[in-house]
């Protein structure tokens, strides 16, 4: 185990020691393995009273669906949620990290977190890794200054928008938003539009699929509607269910203790403090 002490990079952060060896291998013809991407449709929009975020639930590993019902809307603070597209590990880790940083900050300042705080923490982290942390995020929430919606790209640039989409299904979802978004939507209209945009991604993009998750954030309240819509149910379900093979007969039930049960009585005085 003493090997690990030698491998830790001296100044922390990424260690680029193996890059030369990787270059040599690529030159010799070895193809580097590609990263695991979520292949996603994530959207957000601002409505009359706050922000609505939406996401599909398919996680892909190349051409295979690795998780049919994963959660892409991550908790950052009671009033801030973040959808993540790109490499699943990167989005999880980065949102977890900033979420704990925000909580510590809340303890210190005794105030609710602001969305621009989360935004700055995320963009600083992503920029410092020059795009290698492949996380594309849609960050939304409501704080003391009002509702906010931002997109954050893997290289660290951000946009402030009334409606946003990210991921491989972003064009399909964006076409729905560009055609139908207006300012001052009610809560039900907003949820309907977000569900429509995610469905557009689910049905027109191969990297997105399964169910629709929605999160509605208003002043002082948030509602996480997990699996709000399930437009891809299993088509053929046998009504008889699955019949298991006949159970083997029970011949004998006996409990064999592996250790003797020993009663311990306390003797002597209690320890001095």
């Amino acid at each position: 185990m003493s090997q690990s002490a030698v491998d830790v990079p001296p100044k922390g952060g990424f260690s680029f020691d193996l890059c030369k060896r990787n270059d040599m291998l690529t030159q010799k013809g070895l193809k580097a393995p590609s990263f695991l991407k979520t292949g996603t449709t994530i959207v957000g929009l601002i409505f009359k009273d706050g922000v609505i975020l939406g996401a599909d639930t398919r996680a892909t590993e190349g051409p295979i669906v690795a998780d049919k019902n994963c959660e892409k809307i991550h908790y950052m603070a009671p009033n801030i949620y973040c959808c993540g597209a790109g490499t699943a590990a990167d989005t999880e880790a980065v949102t977890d990290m900033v979420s704990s940083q925000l909580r510590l900050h809340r303890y210190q300042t005794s105030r609710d977190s602001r969305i621009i705080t989360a935004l700055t923490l995320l963009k600083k982290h992503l920029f410092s890794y020059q795009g290698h942390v492949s996380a594309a995020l849609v960050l939304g929430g409501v704080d003391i200054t009002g509702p906010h919606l931002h997109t954050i790209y893997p290289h660290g640039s951000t946009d402030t928008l009334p409606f946003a989409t990210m991921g491989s299904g972003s064009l399909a979802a964006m076409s729905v938003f560009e055609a139908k978004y207006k300012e001052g939507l009610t809560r039900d209209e907003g949820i309907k539009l977000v569900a429509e945009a995610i469905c557009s991604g689910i049905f027109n993009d191969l990297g997105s699929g399964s169910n629709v998750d929605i999160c509605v954030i208003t002043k002082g309240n948030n509602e996480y509607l997990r699996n709000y819509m399930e437009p891809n149910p299993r088509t053929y379900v046998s009504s008889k269910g699955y019949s298991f093979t006949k159970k083997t007969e029970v011949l004998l039930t006996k409990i064999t203790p592996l250790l003797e049960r020993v009663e311990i009585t306390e003797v002597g005085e209690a320890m001095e403090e």
Partner: protein
Amino acid sequence: MTFTIPIENGDAGKVAEAESQRTLYPYVTGTSIVAIKYKDGVLMASDMGGSYGSTLRYKNIERMKAIGKHSLLGASGEISDFQEILRYLDELTLNDNMWDDGNSLGPKEIHNYLTRVMYNRRNKFNPLWNTLVLGGVKNGKSYLGMVSMIGVSFEDDHVATGFGNHLARPILRDEWHADLSFEDGVKLLEKCMRVLLYRDRSAINKLQIAKITEEGVTVSQPYSLKTFWEYSSFHNPTASAEGSW
């Protein structure tokens, strides 16, 4: 995309000369075409831009042309290859007229001819760099099909090329239904063209809509769409955080 084939040392000279004659990249390109079948025939929309790389060089290119009495051809991709295809079709329709037997080529025949031409050129590694949309009406039956530069060809109720694949297809899949009226069809096409105008960098706000029915082809005058930029977020995106972006 480059079409290069491995060269053995002996043939280097010959093949290198031949390669310079093949299409390697497109130069002046047109962006998407969107087309739908409607009650009386087919409606097709395209903008009038021709981009030279990232410059918008030409703003008055008609990318939809009538072919014979029964068909309408729209093309995205290399403009010079589109003009070449029009010449081939001219020859085809002329030769057909010379039979003088009262028959005229319908959209299905033209589509088949184009598929053969595109696929054969692709097999010679010298493609015509276009995605073609062929719509038409003959004997009351409307027809809408598409051929790509590698020869993929199919028929459908609504088609889109280029960026339209990603931005217009979801809208068409959701909102197209059989027997649209002319006004509804135009509204649907304009919806798609507006999204393309917002989100495709090579689109311009000058479009034409062409309609083909049993009576023939009409291509509208160029016009522009209204766009909306008045979201309060756009006016002051950093309202809550002065100095940020």
